């Protein structure tokens, strides 16, 4: 299956100038689309899809791999510099990346992101190569009950991760789920919670417009209210390559967190339909849960950026596994990739990797080269990007606002999405202003529809609600949820007990 001649064909094709150009062009597009909030790499792939039909399949794959490999890093740049994730999958990168920027450590954060992205992608690719022969068992072990428990695990971990008032975290998580299920019900077909709008909300609330509002518009409002510069006043902004390479070293200093994030990213990538946003949040949360200093998270802790970014990039390799092995896409990007393969006359499924291994290798090599190019650009360009944070926000507010709202429009070409983004922005501002965590709202929104679908599918399978506790993987996931809830409580009790003992002593 892994005969070297397939690798040779793919490598020889990559060595041709026009294919190298396609990878570089894809990488450039991925970076640009990743940088722009609201416009995802998926849009770039969708736009280019028709143009690839006339290409040689290997060339088409190199173009797509270029986009897929670089977009996560592009998205992390705006997450770190402006607290606005360029891609939804970079949302958790904001939590420590942006505080680092405010402390004048933007170049270090970008260095971490570039290195963790490249190494995370490499990790995912290596796992892809290693697991291709045995992936079938992993994918088919996850039925609807397991998916439901996996989603619950994601929700619970994030709700617990929100600091301060956990109750408010749970409220916004639930609210996110409720907002996500607006639109037609997949089982009965009836239109739900549409606020009297029979057309616009039929297909639910647009994820892109909602994210643009919650992240970008909220941040624009905050900039306008606060004034000044993004780097907090009085902070010395470290520019120069030294800070960037210091960031690269941080990945190796936090190697355990990197491996942990990459493993989570790869596993989430393998699971069809879960997506990179979950990988990003889950890796961040697990890093915080297992850290010796959880109190440093959210305040510019490099561990947070390492975990989030390694997971996002590692998930691409993981997501390719079910795509090429069974024709089951692991993410939206791989779903589009699958469409491209079908357009080129391939039949993705178990026979695909036997007969067309050179295509798989082309994707692997393309991802690898794209990550190397993107990270090199990131490491060398961080110095210049960092300077944006010293610009007075009065210049940034109108520009970011316009680019973000056009991004909200461009996704579905619907002007009401612009209004939705604005309203979501005010909701986000209110949440922040009154101490409700946004992280739980976002993750609830991302997972809500998936949760409902897998819950209903599970009940269709057995009609017995106990199905969630009768299947081994589902039960294990449930026990992990319980552990995630109990562990911090026990740890807090232990700390309180030790503090009392010290006072007595």
């Amino acid at each position, binding site marked *: 299956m892994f005969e070297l001649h397939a690798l040779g064909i793919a490598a020889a094709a990559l060595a041709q100038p026009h294919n190298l150009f396609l990878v570089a062009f894809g990488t450039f597009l991925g970076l*640009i689309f990743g940088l722009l909030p609201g416009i995802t790499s998926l849009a770039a792939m969708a736009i280019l899809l028709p143009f690839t039909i006339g290409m040689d399949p290997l060339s088409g794959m190199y173009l797509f791999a270029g986009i897929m490999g670089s977009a996560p890093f592009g998205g992390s740049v705006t997450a770190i510099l402006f607290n606005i994730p360029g891609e939804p999958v970079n949302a958790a990168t904001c*939590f*420590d990346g942006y*505080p680092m920027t405010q402390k004048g450590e933007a170049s270090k954060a970008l260095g971490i992101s570039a290195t963790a992205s490249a190494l995370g992608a490499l990790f995912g690719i290596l796992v892809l190569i290693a697991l291709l022969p045995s992936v079938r068992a992993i994918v088919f072990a996850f039925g609807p009950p397991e998916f439901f428990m996996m989603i619950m695990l994601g929700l619970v971990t994030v709700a617990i*991760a*929100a*600091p*301060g*008032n*956990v*109750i408010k975290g*749970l*409220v916004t998580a*639930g*609210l996110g*789920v*409720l907002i996500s*299920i607006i639109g037609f*019900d997949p089982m*009965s077909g*009836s239109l*739900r*919670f549409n606020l009297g709008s*029979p057309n*616009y909300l039929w297909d639910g609330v647009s994820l892109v417009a909602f994210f643009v509002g919650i992240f970008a*518009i909220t*941040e*624009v409002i*905050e900039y306008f*209210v606060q004034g000044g510069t993004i780097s907090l006043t009085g902070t010395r902004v470290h520019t120069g390559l030294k800070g960037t390479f210091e960031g690269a070293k941080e990945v190796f200093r936090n190697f355990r967190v990197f491996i942990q994030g990459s493993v989570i990213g790869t596993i989430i990538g393998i699971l069809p339909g879960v997506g990179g946003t979950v990988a990003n949040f889950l890796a961040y949360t697990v890093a*915080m849960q297992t850290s010796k200093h959880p*109190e440093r*998270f*959210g*305040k510019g802790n490099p561990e947070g950026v390492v975990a989030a970014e390694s997971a996002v990039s590692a998930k691409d390799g993981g997501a390719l596994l079910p795509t090429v092995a069974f024709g089951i896409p692991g993410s939206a990007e791989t779903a589009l990739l699958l469409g491209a393969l079908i357009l080129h006359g391939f039949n993705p499924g178990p026979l695909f990797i036997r007969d067309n291994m050179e295509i798989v290798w082309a994707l692997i090599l393309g991802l690898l080269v794209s990550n190397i190019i993107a990270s090199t650009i990131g490491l060398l360009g961080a110095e210049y990007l960092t300077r944006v944070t010293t610009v007075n926000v*009065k*210049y940034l*507010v*109108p*520009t970011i*606002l316009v*680019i973000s709202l056009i991004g909200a*429009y461009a996704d579905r070409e619907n*002007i009401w999405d612009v*209004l939705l983004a*604005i309203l979501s922005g005010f909701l986000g*501002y209110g949440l*922040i*202003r009154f*101490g409700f*965590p946004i*992280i739980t*709202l976002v993750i609830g929104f991302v997972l*809500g529809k998936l949760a409902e679908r897998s*819950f*209903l599918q599970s*009940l269709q399978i057995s009609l017995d609600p106990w199905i969630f506790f009768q299947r081994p993987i589902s039960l294990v996931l449930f026990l992990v949820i319980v552990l995630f809830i109990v562990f*911090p*409580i026990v740890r*807090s009790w232990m700390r309180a007990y030790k503090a009392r003992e010290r006072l007595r002593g």
Partner: protein
Amino acid sequence: MKGSLVFNLFMLAIPAYFVWSCFGYAPTARYIPLIVGIPVLVLQVWVIVQERFPSASRAYDVSILDLGGGQGAAPAAEHSKRPADEGRRVIIIGGWLALYFVLFSLVGAYPATLGFILLFLLVSSRTTWRVALAMSIGTSIALWVLFGLIMKYQLYEGALFGGLVPPL
């Protein structure tokens, strides 16, 4: 305090709407909304009680779960010092956002971008004409190159120039 109560009541109204609406739908359409909506409703009541009567709710304080960790709503932690005229500033930016939406709907993406950035920089940011013109024209051209030229993407033309407003 008053603003907090108003926002908390708004946060209560959202799950209340979902729970109330549920009863008109088929059973499969209301499982998750009810399973999620009712606890959210109860928890939000708890939040209101906690904030209105802090001493009475202290017995049920759940800060034991506070890991002191990552803040999704990072700005809340970072910008704890709010400006005195915060409310006025929020209203002003709301006005600017509304203006952009109206311009976008009427004259389309590129003219709206050009006009909005120019107006914003002159009126709100009080920059010079030269800077305002350079930034507004530069941003509009950059957007046109990206969407119109490279991606061959037709941005909204505006209702006044034949753009369709989709039904709500």
